[in-house]
């Protein structure tokens, strides 16, 4: 074989090492323990200002939801009509709504409702979706066909429409649990699709073959190897959908098919404030702002988690 490095009539220039980015490769500490995907994700997250801002906001929102009494000494259902639409006064920084209830107190107490519905619905949706998606992706064949068609069927029905139809039946005796169940009933489809895809991808990776060769059963493979390796996209969609369910609860309460009227909810407060839009728009503003800030925090958190776990789809 002749010398291939220099072709006739061509001089080759080789850059010195310190002029190339190659030296970074040498800088890598190969003796340190390999960092896992989760550690990498956590490092990316910590440096993301969006994660820090939304994280702090979410911590604050959770504290308000857990201990509303820390923030107000009043009862959200204590309302006197003589205060109807009254302006802000000492001890009542946001004024009074049409029924004469303290807007600030109701905003504080509404946090728990929004957050608990959003969290419970998301947990249930992720569990249900992951189970259905994982079964479809892992077993394949006719099980996959049946479950995938079932997913298509539920996906074609808008969640708001389905929720209204079902909740209309329980209008007189609705509760947080019924709303959460209805949301899970119509909401599992997108998680199921993603879980199915992730499981199908992880199923064909070498570590799975290796594990089977070492004698582990399919079920052990599924729980020990496949599911942990398909978690990232499921966590991403879970974080993103939390905001969706908070909005959905508010929308249902706004339409009057959501929570019972005794439960303090931003959605129903906004709906009631509609009547005083002309006279005192601030009554509408405060619960709307609380709702928007909460949703915004979770959307920002979802974006940050997505950027960390799925580097291919950076939004910022």
């Amino acid at each position, binding site marked *: 074989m002749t010398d291939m490095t220099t072709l006739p009539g061509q001089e080759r220039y080789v850059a010195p090492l310190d002029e190339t980015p190659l030296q970074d490769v040498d800088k890598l500490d190969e003796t340190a323990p390999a960092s896992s995907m989760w550690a990498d994700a956590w490092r990316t997250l910590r440096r993301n200002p969006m994660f820090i801002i939304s994280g702090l906001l979410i911590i604050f929102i959770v504290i308000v939801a857990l201990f509303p009494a820390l923030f107000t000494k009043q009862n959200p259902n204590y309302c006197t009509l003589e205060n109807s639409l009254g302006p802000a006064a000492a001890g009542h920084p946001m004024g009074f709504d049409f029924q004469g209830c303290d807007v600030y107190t109701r905003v504080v107490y509404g946090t728990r409702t929004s957050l608990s519905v959003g969290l419970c619905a998301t947990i249930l949706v992720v569990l249900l979706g992951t189970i259905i998606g994982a079964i479809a992706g892992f077993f394949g064949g006719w099980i996959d066909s049946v479950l995938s068609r079932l997913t298509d069927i539920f996906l074609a*029905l808008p969640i708001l429409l389905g929720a209204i139809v079902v909740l209309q039946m329980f209008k007189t005796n609705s509760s947080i649990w019924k709303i959460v169940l209805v949301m899970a009933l119509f909401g599992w489809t997108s998680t199921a699709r993603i879980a199915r895809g992730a499981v199908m991808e992880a199923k064909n990776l070498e570590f799975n073959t290796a594990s089977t060769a070492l004698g582990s059963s399919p079920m052990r493979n599924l729980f020990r190897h496949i599911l942990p390796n398909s978690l990232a996209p499921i966590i991403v969609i879970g974080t993103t959908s939390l905001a969706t369910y908070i909005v959905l609860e508010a929308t249902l309460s706004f339409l009057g098919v959501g929570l019972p009227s005794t439960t303090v909810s931003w959605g129903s407060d906004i709906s009631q404030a509609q009547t005083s839009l002309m006279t005192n728009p601030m009554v509408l503003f405060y619960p709307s702002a609380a709702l928007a800030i909460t949703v915004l925090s979770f959307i920002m958190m979802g974006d940050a988690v997505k950027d960390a776990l799925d580097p291919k789809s950076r939004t910022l």
Partner: protein
Amino acid sequence: MGKYLLRRVLQVIPVVLGTTLLVYALVFALPGDPVKAMFGDKPVNPAVAAQIRAEYNLDKPFIVQYFIFLKNALTLDFGKTFSGQLVIDEIGRAFPITIRLALMAFVFEAVFGIIFGVISGLKKGKWYDTVILIVSLLLISVPTFVTGFLGQYLFGIKWSILPVTAGNDPTFIDLLLPAMVLGSVSMAYIIRLTRSEISSNIAEDYVRTARAKGMSNRQVMLRHVLRNSLIPVVTYLGQDIAALMGGAMISETIFNIHGVGWLTYQSILKGEGNLVVSIVTLLMLIFVVCNLIVDLLYAALDPRIRYA
């Protein structure tokens, strides 16, 4: 192409049947007696009730009712509402209004979403990019009904430049604010989608190759970056037409527009099962057709996709 179309249509059939069955089951198999509801507080004459039940096929088993509905729906006969109106008439009145509203919202979100998304994606990091990003995040966070009230308050009451509610026979001006409210969330998503697509495509090798070949910046942007970036945007827009028609429920309720969304909500409240099922069936067909059109549009935008 023809084979592909046929396969897609065949795939769609079980989904359409399944979803209509699901809606039918939800609406009719759950507790609540529509005949009793018709009479309100008045005592019900059993003979009359039996006659009404027979007229609306309520005396037959649920699955038989469903097949009768399907058979009639094939000939566009959706039966009558419990108040005696022909369902097809009610739908015929409501659909044109919602189609206008949805089209206006669609044009609004497509035009402004793509324009702002492109500006933002090309000038990443500039102050107006930051402003566009923050506004789009806010639009996504604020639920449609809040945006609706805000729009009503600002445009309708404070500045009084647009009508607050629309009513029975809305004009273009009447529908302007509701359409903007309806399209605002999707517009924000389109901005974000276009922005991230453009900014990732700009860094691709084929863009550098095109520049190296000596193409002008304008040509590179139009022929390469924009064309490639718009594929996911077109997908989103296509699926959104049907979503807009379905999602019109909130904005039509706020602005009192008597379109499909308003009609659906009212008929759910009144227990008009027939009307609900008919509307959902039609909306689903629109959804399916839109998805099909999007898939066919792919071929025009992305020559790599071939239909086998």
